[in-house]
C-alpha cells in the first residue's frame, strides 16, 4: 500500500449512474488485478473504496456507480483535479490456478475489476470466456471493451432486452471452463456457486472503515477463520467461503 496523489485525466458517464474515471499517477504498487484504491473526498469522513478496472505504468482506470453523496461528489470531479488515493489495497485475483479456459462472471458494477483480470489472463496465454450480467440493455457497459480483448463474451439481461435473457447463470452452460472468477452482488455469487463445476475466486464487497486491515470493520467468517475483506480479500476462494452463512 502507498498513499499517492493522482491527477484526473477524464471522468465520464458511461451508463446510467456509472462513471469511468482515468487518473495519472504512480501505479507501481499494484501487484494484481482485483485490488482497489481508497479515495479521500473533501467533506466525507471515510475514504471511498473503488476497485481498479485497468492500469498501466502511469495510469489507472476506475469505474464506479453513484450510490450516495461520496460517489456523487466523485462524479463531479473534473479533468485536472487531484485525488488522494491509498493505492493497491487487497489481495487481488490469483491467476496461477486458472487453467487454460477460465470463466469470468461479472454482474453490474462488479464487472470493472474483471477487466484487468481478463487482460492479465490473456497475457498469460489463457483463453478466458466472459459473462457480463445486467438488468437491462441501457445499463450495459464494457461489452465492447471485453470483446476487443479477443474473448468470447456473453451478455445477459434480466429483462432480455439484450443478449441472453436471465441472470449470469443462464450463460454458464454456453461454454466449457477450467476455473471461475466472479465479482458482483451476493445473490449472483450464490447462484454462480450453485451452478459452478470448478474451483474459483469471488471478489467481495463490504462497508469498510480503513480499507487496509486496521479496523476489522469488514470481516468475513470463512472456513479458515475470520478474514478482513479489505486486506485478506476482497478475493476469496470458492472453497474457503462459508456459503451457507452468506446473507
Amino acid at each position, binding site marked *: 500500500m502507498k498513499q499517492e496523489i493522482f491527477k484526473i485525466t477524464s471522468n465520464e458517464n458511461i451508463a446510467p449512474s456509472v462513471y469511468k474515471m482515468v487518473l495519472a499517477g504512480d501505479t507501481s504498487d499494484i501487484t494484481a488485478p482485483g485490488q482497489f484504491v481508497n479515495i479521500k473526498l473533501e467533506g466525507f469522513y471515510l475514504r471511498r473504496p473503488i476497485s481498479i478496472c485497468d492500469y498501466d505504468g502511469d495510469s489507472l482506470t476506475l469505474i464506479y456507480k453513484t450510490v450516495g453523496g461520496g460517489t456523487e461528489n466523485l462524479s463531479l470531479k473534473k479533468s485536472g483535479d487531484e485525488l488522494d488515493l491509498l493505492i493497491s489495497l487487497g489481495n487481488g485475483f490469483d491467476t496461477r490456478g486458472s487453467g487454460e479456459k477460465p470463466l469470468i462472471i461479472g454482474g453490474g458494477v462488479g464487472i470493472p475489476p474483471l477487466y484487468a483480470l481478463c487482460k492479465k489472463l490473456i497475457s498469460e496465454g489463457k483463453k478466458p470466456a466472459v459473462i457480463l450480467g445486467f438488468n437491462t440493455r441501457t445499463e450495459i457497459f464494457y461489452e465492447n471493451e471485453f470483446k476487443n480483448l479477443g474473448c468470447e463474451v456473453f451478455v445477459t439481461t434480466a429483462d432480455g432486452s439484450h443478449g441472453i435473457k436471465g441472470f449470469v447463470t443462464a450463460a454458464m452452460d454456453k461454454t466449457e471452463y477450467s476455473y471461475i472468477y466472479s465479482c458482483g452482488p451476493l445473490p449472483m455469487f450464490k447462484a454462480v456457486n450453485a451452478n459452478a463445476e470448478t474451483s474459483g475466486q469471488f471478489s467481495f464487497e463490504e462497508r469498510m*472503515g*480503513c480499507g487496509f486491515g486496521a479496523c476489522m470493520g469488514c470481516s468475513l467468517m470463512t472456513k479458515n477463520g475470520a478474514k478482513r475483506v479489505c486486506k485478506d480479500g476482497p478475493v476469496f476462494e470458492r472453497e474457503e467461503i462459508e456459503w451457507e452463512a452468506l446473507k
Partner: protein
Amino acid sequence: MGSTEVTLCGVRLDNPVIPASGTFGFGYEFAELYNINCLGSISFKGTTIEPRFGNPTPRIAECEAGMLNSVGLQNPGAEKVLTEELPRLKKVFKKPLMANVSGFSVKDYTAAVEILDREDAIGWFEINISCPNVHGGGLAFGTSCENAAAVTAAVKKVTKKPVLIKLSPNVTDITEIAKACEAAGADGLSLINTLLGMRIDLKTKKPVLANKAGGFSGPAIKPVAVRMVYQVYEAVKIPIVGMGGISTAEDVIEMMLAGAAAVEVGAANLVEPFACKNIIEDLPRVMQKYGINNLKDIIGGAHNG
C-alpha cells in the same frame, strides 16, 4: 526545539501520541508504511480471554466528521495474542506497549491480564470497561461505580504493571466512575471511549449497522472528550490518557491543556494512515507557534488561574 517527552505512570514516552486500540490492529499494517518506532506507544487491538469474531456486518457507518463502528471486539484471544501477534509486533516496535483488555466478567478480565502479563514488552494495561458494542459486556462495567471498582481492584491484584481504566462517555457523571476507579487502585484513566450512535439508511429504512447502534468516533466527538478530560482532571490525581477525535498536533495540545498526560489517536488512523506520524512530526512546529517549550508543562494548563 522543544521537548515532547512525557511520563505515563512512571514510564517515559518520547512523545504523548499513542494509536488507540482498535484502530491500529497489532501495528503491522502501519509498519509497512512507516517506521512506527516514532510513536509514543501503541495500544493494541482489544484482547479478550476467548477468541471473538465480533458482530455481524455491516459494522461501519459514516457520519458527519466521524464514523460509527460495531466491530465488537474481534480478536484471536489472549493466548494467541501473546504467542502470535505480540512476537510479530515486537519485531517492528521496540517500545513499551499498552495492552488493551476487555471482558464480560471480572474473571474474564483477570484471566486475560494474567496471560498477557507474561509479556515484558507490555508497559501498561488499559482495561476497557466501556465497549459500547457488546451486549451485557464491558459497558455494564463502565456505567456503574461498583462494577468499575471491582474490575479495577481485581486486575490490580494480578499484575504489577500500571493499570489504566478506559472509561465510557455514555454516563451521567464520568467523574464518579473515575473516582471509583482511582479509589480501587487504578494507576491512570483513559477517556473517552466512543459515544453510542446510530445512522439510519434512507433507502433500506433500517439502521446502517447490523448491530443497529455503534461506537461514534472522529473529530465530531472531540468537544465531549475535551470536556470530560477537563472534568476528570479536577476529580482525580492519577494521570489521564485523553482521546476522542484527535487528528492534529493542535488537538493533542488542546487535550493536554484539558488535563491529558498522553493522548490516543483513533479514527484518524483509519482515514489517514500516516496520521500519527504526521502529528508527531508537526508537534514541534505547533508547540513553537503557541510558545510551548516543554510539552509536559502544559498538562492541565487550562485549569490554571
